[in-house]
């Protein structure tokens, strides 16, 4: 019957599971992993901190000359994200006009200090 045939077929074929620490599962390109900010593009508009559902993005002062739509403007603030409280929903990436804040294809990672921040 079907269960028996399936069993014997599995017995002879390679197992599907992998030994995790040695072999890794490929991460797709669109994976929403750890949050990262490229400082050159950020114009300090603080849209991301307004939109963040978990309110973990705070604006700290970071003056810098920035190029935006061929105009150069002086930025006063830049975002700082509490890494271990970020829920990786990708809404900040969606609403950021310049694509400064984005989610990398890397797992969020672990740590003991709750206050680790990404700037």
């Amino acid at each position, binding site marked *: 019957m079907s269960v*028996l045939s399936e*069993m014997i077929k*599995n*017995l002879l074929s390679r197992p599907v*599971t992998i030994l995790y620490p040695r072999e890794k599962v490929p991460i797709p390109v669109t994976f929403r992993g750890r949050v990262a900010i490229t400082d050159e593009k950020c114009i300090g508009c603080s849209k991301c901190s307004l939109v963040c559902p978990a309110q973990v993005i705070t604006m700290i002062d970071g003056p810098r000359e920035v190029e935006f739509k061929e105009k150069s403007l002086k930025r006063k603030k830049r975002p700082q994200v509490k890494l271990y409280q970020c829920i990786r929903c990708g809404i900040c990436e969606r609403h950021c006009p310049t694509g400064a804040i984005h989610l990398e294809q890397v797992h969020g990672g672990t740590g003991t200090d709750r206050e680790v921040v990404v700037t």
Partner: protein
Amino acid sequence: MTDPVFILLYIVLFPGFIFLFVYALFLSFLDRKIVARMQNRVGPPFYQPFADLVKMLAKEVIDPDGVDRGLFDAIPLVALAAVMTAFLYVPVTGYSPLAFPGDLVVVLYLMIIPTFALFLLGWLSRNIFSAIGGIRAATQMFIYEVPFFLALLAPAIMAGTWSISGIVVWQQHNTWLVFFQPIGFVVALICLQAKLERTPFDIPEAETEIVAGPLTELTGRRLAIIHLTTEISLVVGSALIAALFLGGPMIPWTLSPSWLNEVVGFCVFLVKTLAVLLVLSSIKVATGRIRIDQLNDIGWKYIASAALVQVGMVLVINYLWVTL
């Protein structure tokens, strides 16, 4: 053959406790590996059962309050001792030197003690889940013991002797008993699966219904010993069926140097027990757990009547055999 040093060595070292201990762990690993590979998983490394055993032995022993500590420690040990002594009478290389004309009955009796241990543990540990588990263990024992005895006594009747080694010697002259008693072989396999409480019949410790049944309150070394008992009774059971139905560790022609006989016999024993284990594992993979009342119907309607039919056939064949 009877000088004490050899007997001592026989009991302690080779086919005795050390070998049994190692072979039980190996068979348990093989069982888990086969089940895993059939379920498309990688399965545990070869030292996993040993690692589990050592870890559990090191764990803290928690006594639920109001439980008789002494008895709670003693019962697993009694079960382990019973099953280990049962293995001494099962022939591993050629025939066992300790054989005596009634050792089949002794082995069968010693194999029931673990089920009693489970029932007592369930009753002792004052926990609703283990009480129900204990009652289920007892009910299940009544259902499969009768057919198991009938199925294993049929070869004794045919071979005319009650000693397992005797039956093995008889099979060496005639063909394997499985050709005479196919139904008995199937019934014995099913009842062994029930005795070892493996999946279709693991009703006493059904982990999704009554936590772990009688084993709920066992921790630390007690749990380790009970698991070891189950693994060893797996070895003893499959060795018993290999001996009684598949001709045991004997080979038809005798080789020139006498010790070579023993070695080849031992390899044949290994191959046959692995074959029995493969059958048991595939039963475990292919089925889900049935309820205790369903087991009751199936047990008495089909398995018991099949065993009776088998014994009837054996008596008829014996009668014809004698008259011819």
